[in-house]
């Protein structure tokens, strides 16, 4: 018997997957743009719709009892309004396209400001749509195109997938609510959280020895392996001769007060806190307008300055 039930359930599921894709498939994230088709829009009466239905039932009974035909007409007209409501609610959502979802990267524990760009494929009345599935529902108007701003908490660093959102509308009379589940296959970059208490920047003379000493009296900024395309005049011939590798001087480093932010400098801390500290240093250094270089176990960035470079460093830290 139990086996029979399991069999039925299984065949039911297969049927649902085959015939009702809206019930099964749309739980999975899907790539943008997402077009809302009527097969993926659900509709249920609101509380007010239920009240209205109850009132109409009372009116119907009264009108039938007294065979009051004018009252019957009125009741049926209102019933028609109620019956039309779910269709209208679905139409409010139908052929709405979620075109893009954009967000500036933020640090973990901040709010991600997600900008959802909706577009309508068809001419429509100005209807209010709501986005739920997040802490505070957001309402916006859609005529041809509209941006909705949604705030999401950034809980951890790295690529964070967008959460489950529900787009809904109770147009036109608030008696029925239609909704559709949106789960865009798109990740938002979240930078690591900067350490709350600022550790002093590992400036010259305060940290460990920063410079690679190649030879006495020569204080090189730093050497790295030759890469095709490096200009020949930058090759450190002497050092190369000593190491039997072709080494290249890094351009524009030290002597002008630039920083070296190294993974090893925060060696005393656990992994995540190390990232936090480096993040802090990057943020502070960028805020001070300094040039800096970021050395991570995986890569070395810079030295450089400016917003673009800072973003590149934070991204590398986020994805560590």
């Amino acid at each position, binding site marked *: 018997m139990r086996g029979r039930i399991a069999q039925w359930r299984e065949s039911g599921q297969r049927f649902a997957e085959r015939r009702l894709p809206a019930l099964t498939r749309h739980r999975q994230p899907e790539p943008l743009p997402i077009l809302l088709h009527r097969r993926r829009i659900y509709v249920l009466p609101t509380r007010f719709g239920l009240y209205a239905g109850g009132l109409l039932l009372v009116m119907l009974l009264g009108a039938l009892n007294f065979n009051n035909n004018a009252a019957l007409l009125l009741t049926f007209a209102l*019933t028609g309004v109620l*019956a*039309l409501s779910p269709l*209208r609610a679905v139409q409010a959502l139908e052929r709405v396209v979620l075109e893009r979802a*954009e967000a500036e990267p933020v640090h973990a524990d901040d709010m991600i400001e997600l900008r959802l760009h909706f577009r309508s494929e068809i001419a429509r009345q100005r209807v209010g749509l709501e986005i739920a599935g997040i802490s505070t529902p957001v309402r916006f108007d859609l005529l041809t195109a509209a941006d909705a701003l949604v705030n999401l908490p950034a809980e951890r660093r790295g690529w964070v997938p967008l959460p489950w959102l529900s787009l809904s509308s109770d147009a036109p009379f608030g008696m029925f609510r239609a909704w559709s589940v949106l789960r865009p296959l798109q990740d938002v970059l979240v930078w690591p959280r900067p350490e709350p208490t600022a550790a002093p920047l590992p400036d010259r003379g305060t940290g460990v020895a920063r410079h690679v000493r190649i030879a006495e009296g020569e204080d090189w900024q730093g050497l790295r392996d030759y890469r095709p395309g490096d200009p020949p005049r930058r090759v450190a011939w002497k050092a190369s001769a000593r190491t039997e590798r072709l080494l290249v001087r890094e351009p524009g480093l030290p002597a002008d007060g630039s920083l070296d932010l190294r993974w090893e400098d925060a060696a005393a801390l656990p992994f995540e806190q190390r990232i936090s500290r480096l993040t802090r240093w990057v943020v502070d250094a960028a805020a001070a307008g300094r040039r800096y270089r970021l050395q991570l176990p995986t890569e070395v960035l810079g030295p450089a300055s400016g917003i673009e470079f800072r973003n590149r460093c934070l991204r590398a830290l986020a994805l560590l």
Partner: protein
Amino acid sequence: MATGVTLLAALALNTKWLPIWLMGALLPLATLAIVARWRGAGPLPTFWRILLLVGACAAIAATQPSVFGREAGAALLASMLVLKYLETSGVRDARLVVMVSNFLAMAAFLRDQSFEQTSLAFALVVLVLVALQWLRTDRMAPLANAAPQPSLREWRAPLREALLTMAVVIPFALASFLLFPRLATPLWGSLDDKPRGKVGIDDELELGALSGLALDDSPAFRVRFDNDAAAPPPAERYWRGLVLWSFDGRVWAGSRRFPGTRAGPDVIAEGQRYDYEIALVEAPRIWRFALDAPLTTPAGMLRGVDLQITGPAGPRAERSYRATSATRYRLNSELPFALRRAALQLPSGSNPSAVRLGEKWRMQHGADVDAIVQESLEMIRAGFLYSLDPPPLGRQAIDEFLFSTRIGFCEHFASSFVFLMRAAGIPARIVTGYQGGERNSVGKYWIVRQSDAHAWAEIWIAGRGWQRVDPTAAVAPERVLRGSSGFGEGTDAGWLGKSAWWSGLRDRADLLGTWWQQAVVGFDSLRQANLLQRLGAGEANRMRHALLWLALMMATLGFAALLMSIRRRLPASPWIVVYREFAAKLAGGGVQRKSTEGPAEFSERAATTLPDQASEIRRIAQEFIALRYASEHTVESERARRLEILRRRVRALKVARRRDAIVS
């Protein structure tokens, strides 16, 4: 605001029935509340609400005869709704107030189901739909990114939506109206059966009662003769209603001693017979009206020995019936003792002067009935005046009328005449009903109005039976010949009544009202069964019937939804337009875009096919891809600027047309 206006409109629908003091209290209260809300006031404090609630309940209980009556119910509902409005704080309350306003419109239908009233109620529904939409935006305002404040300027779109909805819903309502299974018998009794307020003829006649009706222009019933061309002449248009036998010196009343039978008395027609259908406007009371004298008993009714027709009463009773009459007839050649006694009854000691006058005539003329009638009619013709506004009379009403005031309305003349006849020993009785009627030339039927209410006399003459005598005709023959509208200023006053287009308009309005009354208001389970049978739905089977209704409803709504979903497609996004233009140019050069190809592949293929433009094609493709897919941090204005550059670049792209287009 929208809520308040809806509420006011719903109250206004009930103006005619709600007690005046209540309307006088509720309308200003609601108006004040609307103004207060408009200026940002909150709900009324609890103390005041409770005070008002108790006050309203007490006042209604004190003034209404029954707390469970229709009036009391409507009054209570209206007060509660206004009080609820005073305390509404959120959208939820406001929506309920708006929705229950419909219920108030329905309460009004219990009193009046006319076409006008129904139209007004449907207008209210439109208002309700607009208000509900406003309430939605109200709710959205605080949180929306771009707050759409509901303002008076924003009524267009909601109104459009409301009207569109009504356009879909009205056919639905009509179809439901025809097909929805109905109750053959009510589930519970009617709240109160006796219609109050506006009444036509009553079963008692007091001097001065009918003159009150003389100014009431509303229709009492409509008559359609089977042969419209041969309607009875004006002087024969007497619509018989009640027969009043007993007089207590002040009031004439019917007699319960002569109950009707299904067969009724034999009436011998002496002249043309008329077949016709009468449709009453108000729910009938037990008596019916028929052209004097009805030869047969209408189906389902009884006819008394005095030709009074009685039938079922109440709001569910059938309002129209068929009858056959002859205006020249002979009735009761023999007069049984009981009838003779009733027809000669006089209250002792009342109106002594009139009794003496009657006795004097009997002495003078003996059994010569015609002479006595002549004498009395001569007297009336010589010294009496007909007036819609006769002076009031005291206890010896007949004496005062006959010997001092001498100004009266039809019931004064009729009752005095009958009184005199009885005093002179001639059996006599009063008949009340209507006299006259106005032809609706558009609809080819006759309207008899309340202002046509009339009272006349019948006397019994040996060998000839009962004969109608209308003493009013003696004093004011135009009243009988031209009907009530030919007399006095009570009806259509001045030039309006005479202009042709006005009467044509009035005829049409009445035709519409009549059609409404018969086709819509009169529709019931019996007629529905007939209709379904004619439609081929077979015997009235409730289940089948309900299924038919359901199917039709689905079809109607589905069709409506289909119509509504046909909407204009919006033009594609601007970047798509640019891309299509680009693709079209390359196609001209012989490179057709495949549907499976993305921009990168397509442009690469184009670049290899068209080496002259390769670099430009690649640049455009790169820029396009950058704009379309890789612009996470671009603001909208920047995006637009780049799109414009791209568009120019595509325009500038020159691709040589190739004849041997490579079609893959």
